[in-house]
């Protein structure tokens, strides 16, 4: 136990400040009222769905959980069930074999729900394009709020995409 505690103390706190939102990644104007977004911004639950990625995006998503990014400190965490999630984070070009599972996961989410498409594949199919086996991007299957480009997008960019989706801008109505 003592070596563990000493190691934690010596390591210290390595967390870095969160990046700013990027409005240019917004795919459609916000569908959720700004007041709700403000609440989500303090306790956002994300369900990730790999819809046929090469696993590069998953490595960076896992990296987002490392101490540098302090995700939980920002009130953001990943959940096992779409029924507990406010946001669906989707990677991959949407393989035909994941199309149905992706729809089911989306349908299982309670409203209001946000969708972030991750990476060049999630944006438009990336290098896989549209084929007998792939759907050319997440927006071909479910509505997308924010697209984060990159192959894969590094963790800081993924965080920016998440924060963009919950930023109370892009046409959402203020709640009075």
């Amino acid at each position, binding site marked *: 136990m003592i070596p563990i505690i000493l190691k934690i103390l010596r390591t210290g706190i390595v967390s870095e400040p969160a990046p700013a939102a990027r409005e240019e990644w917004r795919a459609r104007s916000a569908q959720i009222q700004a007041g709700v977004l403000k609440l989500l911004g303090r306790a956002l639950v994300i369900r990730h769905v790999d819809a*046929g990625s090469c696993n590069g995006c998953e490595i960076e998503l896992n990296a987002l959980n490392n101490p540098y990014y302090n995700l939980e400190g920002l009130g953001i965490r990943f959940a096992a069930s779409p029924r507990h999630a406010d946001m669906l984070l989707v990677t991959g070009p949407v393989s035909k074999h994941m199309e149905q599972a992706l729809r089911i996961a989306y349908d299982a989410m309670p409203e209001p729900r946000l969708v972030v498409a991750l990476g060049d594949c999630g944006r438009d199919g990336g290098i896989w394009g549209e084929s007998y086996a792939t759907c050319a991007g997440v927006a071909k299957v479910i509505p997308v709020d924010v697209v984060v480009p990159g192959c894969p997008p590094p963790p800081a960019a993924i965080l920016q995409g998440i924060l963009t989706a919950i930023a109370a801008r892009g046409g959402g109505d203020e709640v009075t």
Partner: protein
Amino acid sequence: MRVPGIGLDVRALPGAMPVAHARVDPAQWSEATRLAREDAGRLVALWGADDRDRGRGFAILAALAVRDGLVVIELALDADSPSYPDLSGLFPAADRMQRAAFDLLGIYAQGAADKRPWLRHGAWREGEFPLRRDFDAAAKRENAPDRYPFVRVEGDGVHEIPVGPIHAGIIEPGHFHFSVVGEKVLRLEERLAYTHKGADRRFQDFTVAEGYRLAGRISGDSTVAYAWAYAQAAESLLGIGIPPRAAWLRALMLERERVANHLGDLGALGNDAGLAFGLSQFMRLKEDWLRASAEVFGHRFMMDCIVPGGVTADVAGAHLAALPRQADSIEAESRALQDIFDEHSGIQDRFITAGRVTPDLARKLGLAGLAGRSSAQAFDLRADFPCAPYGELAVKKVVYSAGDVAARVHARFDELHESLRLVREILSRAVPGEIRDGLPASRGGFGVGWVEGWRGEVLVALEADAHGRIRRAHAHDPSWQNWPLIEHAVIGNIVPDFPLINKSFNLSYSGHDG
């Protein structure tokens, strides 16, 4: 090169690895595979081709690792009844590969027992074959979910737990069908191919010079291994070498990729055994490592840095001193964490005896790569058939025989530290010079690349037409060999140990699904 004991007309392919190609008849196909098996050979990959546009039928190809290197045997198949002798009796790993070859091409193994589809779910219909040249890729198809006939286990108290394709964590999709009694797993059956992206067909939209980008996205965690294997295949096909410095830099990247993955896996294994501290610490080290790769090579995973003809990025200036220094500090931290792991009775209790694959089972079923070496299958291409610069590096092969989660954890620590040594060694010994040669004029031909990635042997086979367009490509992930072993490794274990056992193999879904 020859397969011991048979008079095959083999043609050695030029290139970095000892690879030969032989056209065989059905009798030679059976004989060569039998002799390879008897001589401790391994089936590395199996795939098919449609050559009907060239006035021939179909073809089935098998890559066999034998004492002298890799022999690719190719059997021409009749256009109307394209069948070949079943290999799954000799090499059980052939079973799924043969089913995949049927799903893509409609060629089949005579007498194979399992005729269920493997890659095909609902994206294309029964009787359609996406790799056939007359496949209508543009046709609109109803993407109907299929009903896969899982094997039923019956008896008192047996119940089933279906898991996936979407799993609980941030991982790739696949389906696991458990039959359990109480907490104990009686049987696990896997259903994969949810991430099938039609890679082999997509390759045909690229030229030999371009295809490395697709190869680097077959399995993102092994992008360097795939890009290198692709580059080897392309360079073999074109009959060219690479500048000596490029080979050193490729090895640097391959070892950096191994270090990154092992750091991540060690953290995740600690976490799955209940030590979140291990995850935080190792993920911090991995992040430091990936950031250094981004700074030096311009990409955290070094994607697209290996190209046919060489590499795109060099190490120079302050990086020459910074990278070995970082390897030193990561090693010091990792060794300290290894002591904590070793002395932590809680996680050792979870690791030891969990998910055991005995050396005998590993040999019979052909367990590959890191997991294979943890079950006494002592194969490592970097040591067995060292291409430049590995011949000068004397890679220490890491072998354990316990075959449990603990062995796979030990193997990761040892390989991590060996790779950190290699990183330092490469940086101090790499010769100066050019890093990339231009490519010669396009030409047709066949080439194979074969690289020991962090998970195991990655193979890329490449065939081009006279204009340099890819005519047929096949990328093979060692996960093909190892997925079936997880079904065995979990038998008799409790369900809650499955995530830990699965993680200790850490297989690629995307690499397998293609």
